[in-house]
């Protein structure tokens, strides 16, 4: 997603020189329809930055614990990178396709969204193929008597036909491959969400909260194959996605007074500090006895599947402080040091898939080579470098290699760009 106008107009991606012009153009367009789409047209580098960061953190979290794991936010509070990723995805999707809906109508926007869903689906199937290769290897080469029980997990390989069909139906999903199916389902409902948002954004958000509450009340879930449930319950996680969309379509602006108040700031800080101390007791078990039993019993378990309220609140607090202390025009956003992060965030689908693949590969290397802490850290760093390199290559393709073709074939490309969503 390089600019909001881009996917709609099908124009080549503007570089920073033309950005101001695109900006003005967008403002003009936004002014015309008097619905809730935001007037602010400047490309939100903060979104790219934090989505890039989320992608890095997800990659590190998917690797076995190592030195770099201590840098990821899940060690310092309740929420983790998944929350950031889903929220920003909701935000950018609403930004891009909301505009498409205003300008092209419901059918056009839906068609474009469905094409995007198809891309994500293909990416998921591709990752599944790699996963299948990895575990087939483990299943045939690994027969340690210590783990006879755990190796039973490979039994599904005895029925590859069923397994593959179930994977295509998104019902069979290996560990660490849960985010894309969630994303697919959320995107499938995006036309409906946007259509409702166009009508009444607050009611839409209210419905989303209601669905979240009903999920907790009646224990709604999607089942998986061969048994079990979806590790990210779409009925609950839609709340973050819809909230992101709501913020993109004017909610963030309307909240700006709340966000800039000092009371909000102190509540957020207090909550973050409290959750930090709770997290600390997980990693320093010797501190465990400080926690009052009553609070423990009320709080645990903090449910990731259903997006626990504590996690959601933790994300909100983080987001509120970020918005407050990192202004949209912070010069650092243009600095070359943050460039790799921003590039990764701008090509999120490709980089996300690459991250999942690299995590598999990393597991594999670590298993084959019993290396020490240094090798673990090295693998994490290499993975991140590869992700940055790939993001750079993709943007090079867009800016240079595809430039000639962009006059005619822009639609396909533009959507990939818009797909930053």
């Amino acid at each position, binding site marked *: 997603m390089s600019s909001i106008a881009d996917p709609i107009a099908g124009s080549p991606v503007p570089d920073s020189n033309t950005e101001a012009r695109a900006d003005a153009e967008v403002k003009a367009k936004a002014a015309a329809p008097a619905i809730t789409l935001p007037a602010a047209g400047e490309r939100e580098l903060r979104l790219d930055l934090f989505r890039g960061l989320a992608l890095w953190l997800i990659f590190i979290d998917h690797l*076995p614990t190592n030195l770099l794991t201590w840098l990821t936010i899940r060690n310092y509070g309740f929420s983790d990178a998944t929350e950031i990723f889903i929220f920003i995805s909701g935000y950018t999707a609403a930004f891009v396709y909301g505009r498409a809906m205003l300008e092209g109508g419901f059918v056009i926007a839906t068609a474009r969204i469905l094409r995007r869903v198809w891309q994500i689906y293909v990416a998921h199937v591709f990752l599944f193929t790699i996963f299948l290769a990895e575990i087939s290897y483990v299943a045939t080469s690994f027969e*340690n008597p210590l783990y006879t029980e755990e190796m039973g997990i490979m039994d599904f390989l005895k029925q590859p036909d069923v397994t593959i069909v179930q994977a295509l139906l998104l019902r069979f999903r290996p560990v660490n491959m849960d985010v894309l199916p969630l994303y697919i389902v959320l995107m499938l409902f995006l036309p409906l969400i946007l259509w409702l948002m166009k009508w009444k954004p607050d009611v839409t958000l209210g419905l989303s909260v209601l669905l979240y509450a009903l999920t907790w009340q009646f224990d709604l879930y999607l089942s998986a194959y061969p048994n079990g449930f979806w590790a990210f319950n779409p009925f609950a996680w839609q709340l973050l996605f819809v909230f992101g969309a709501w913020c993109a379509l004017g909610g963030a602006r309307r909240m700006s007074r709340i966000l800039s108040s000092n009371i909000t700031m102190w509540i957020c800080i207090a909550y973050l500090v409290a959750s930090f101390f709770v997290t600390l007791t997980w990693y320093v078990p010797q501190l465990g006895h400080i926690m009052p039993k009553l609070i423990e019993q009320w709080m645990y378990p903090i449910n990731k599947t259903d997006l626990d309220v504590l996690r959601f609140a933790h994300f909100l607090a983080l987001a509120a402080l970020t918005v407050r202390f990192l202004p949209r025009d912070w010069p650092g956003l243009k600095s070359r040091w943050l460039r790799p992060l921003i590039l990764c965030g701008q090509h999120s689908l490709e980089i996300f898939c690459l991250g999942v693949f690299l995590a598999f590969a990393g597991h594999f290397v670590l298993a084959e*080579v019993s290396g020490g802490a240094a090798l673990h850290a090295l693998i994490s760093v290499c993975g991140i470098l590869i992700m940055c390199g790939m993001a750079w290559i993709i943007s090079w393709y867009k800016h240079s290699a595809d430039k000639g073709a962009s006059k005619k074939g822009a639609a396909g490309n533009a959507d990939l760009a818009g797909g930053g969503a």
Partner: protein
Amino acid sequence: MKSAWTMLGLTLLAACLAAAPARAGDPPEQPVPAPPCDVPAYLLSSESALPKVTDAVKASQPLNVLVVGSRSSTIPGNEASAYPATMQAALKEAFPAAKIDLSVELQGKSTAEETAGTLVKLVEAKKPTLVIWQTGTVDAMRAVDPDDFRTAINDGVVALRGAGADVVLVNLQYSPRTETMISAPPYLDNIKVVAQQHDVPLFDRFAIMKQWSDAGYFDLFSTSHGVDLAKKVHACLGRALAKFVIDAAHLGPVQQN
């Protein structure tokens, strides 16, 4: 294959060490210390108590231990080397005067919910002082809803206590090779929650084995088909579990850690 990877790894490692002298401070491959499987003290102590075990040992009555678990509580074909047996041996060593009986009830493919249903009958039949309930692996492999899992353990613990036995919970093995296939964390968390709610000592097998793997005591990634590694790990697990029980029952100083 393996050696090619090892070479690659060593090369990478060497390159890394050469390129980043700052890393040179990292501890090199640790030599295996005299006791082959140290466990940090906090993993072997519990705030929860085992009053019936305490009473039985103090009154010099026989200590009747029942281990209920899935296949990871045994080594196929080498039951006598599995951790229940090594724990029994370690307890005998600690209390030479006491009579320590052990029975092991393996329910290979049962989830916590299925096992919980059988517990009362088991306790009535065997009249144990202490039930060591190893659980979670089957549930994690079948991706049972963690809430249902928690309810099942909760019910099981209540039933065992109601039937008059002390309880120790044992969680999953640390199994690095299947980490990308079995999602252990929700089940580890939920066992912990139940243990906290009911004041049940939880033997954190996962953390202990991970500790051993990180410290380089055991190569848990090994593809070796031999039974040696399994025997060694179980010997250590049994000893650690015995210490844990002795500590939770407040039976004298835990000797050399």
